[in-house]
């Protein structure tokens, strides 16, 4: 195909147009895309010498960002968070923000108490952000005690275990 390989001058369209007008490219050799480009030109001309558009990039913030910041400042990281869109369980921070906004819209709580009230509201749902408020896990400790006796000999066994003993049965079978 005819054509100077100077991609920095003009665009592919202007270069082909020039070739067609001057007769260097015959009309039957016209590229397949030429009519399409003419009918649907790109929004921004693909010129190499195109200057960048001056546009400031604004920061994106939401009103609830302040609540989120206060939450993480007070309680720190709450463990791993699933970022999946399809996750049906909202994260702790999301639930906290929901409670905070609900209390705020009700308007019964003074602003400086909102953080504490939101944490208390979560406690009503069984989520204890402050671990000292959590009830003692009595039922669970009992279960643990029941589990312990079978576990203890296992660990003892592991210390005194010998390979010969381990394969004794299979050796006997043979």
């Amino acid at each position: 195909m005819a054509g100077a390989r100077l991609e920095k001058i003009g665009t592919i369209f202007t270069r082909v147009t020039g070739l067609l007008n001057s007769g260097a490219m015959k009309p039957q050799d016209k590229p397949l895309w030429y009519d399409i480009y003419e009918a649907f030109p790109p929004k921004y001309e693909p010129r190499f010498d195109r200057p960048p558009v001056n546009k400031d990039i604004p920061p994106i913030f939401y009103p609830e960002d302040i609540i989120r910041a206060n939450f993480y400042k007070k309680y720190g990281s709450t463990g791993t968070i699933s970022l999946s869109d399809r996750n049906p369980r909202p994260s702790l921070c999301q639930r906290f923000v929901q409670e905070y906004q609900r209390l705020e819209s009700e308007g019964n709580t003074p602003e400086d108490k909102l953080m504490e009230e939101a944490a208390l509201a979560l406690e009503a749902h069984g989520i204890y952000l402050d671990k000292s408020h959590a009830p003692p896990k009595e039922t669970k400790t009992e279960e643990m005690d029941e589990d312990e006796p079978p576990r203890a000999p296992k660990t003892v066994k592991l210390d005194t275990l010998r390979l010969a003993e381990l394969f004794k049965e299979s050796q006997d079978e043979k």
Partner: protein
Amino acid sequence: MAALSRRIFTHYYAWCWGGVRQRSLASCTSPALTSTPAVEEQLTQSPPATTTHTESSMDQILKESLKHPDYFQVAQLFTVEDLFRARVHLGHVEGTGDPHMNQFIFGSRLGHHIIDLDQTAAHLRHALNIIAHIAFREGIILFVGRLPQHQYLIECTAKECGEYSHCRYWQGGVLTNSTKQFGSITRLPDLIILLHSMYTTVQQHYAIRDAAKMLIPTVAIVDSNCNPKLVTYPIPGNDDSAIAIELYCRLFKNAVLKGKEKRKEVLGL
């Protein structure tokens, strides 16, 4: 303005002549018609002229197709919400961006650029229309990408829509020295689609530069760290996430297939 109209007029004149010349070339089996002017050609009703007639009607259809803003109905293939769910809006970290991409960026969220999906949707619809038109005219489309994790997907996409792909090491003269590179005269692609416009982390893909040299239009996904200047139809969007690449591949494939189906429908095949 005068210069513009002159350019369009001369182009239109050239187009007419191109049409006539092509027809005369195509209908070389009937030598009686090759020397007759275009007007007479249309008037003659003799049986050998039927091939010429279908040729001119195809030309007419091609011309008409360009007047319609969305001839292949590709605009309905996706919504802005689909783009958002595919994480197309996620750009690179602030400071790694290219100043030419600033106009496509919605804002910066905690140090990360967020791409304006309204602009992305408009550019993507425009590009899909172009792809469908190229496929409608039986143009060769080449899918290009360089990220190894998306290589298989891109190659499968090209295969499924009956087109070509190049996802491997770019040997210098694939486009610019194709005759030597492939050992014989090679037909170059009519459109190059880049699913990833970077070759390495910092280097732009050579296909963009070489396509501009060889007068081949390009459609490319440009992330916030890419340079869209030489890309004919840039689409601002995330080019790293697998889910986003899957969406682009699906859309491009559908656009190509729509163009091909329309051609079959028009030709009555």
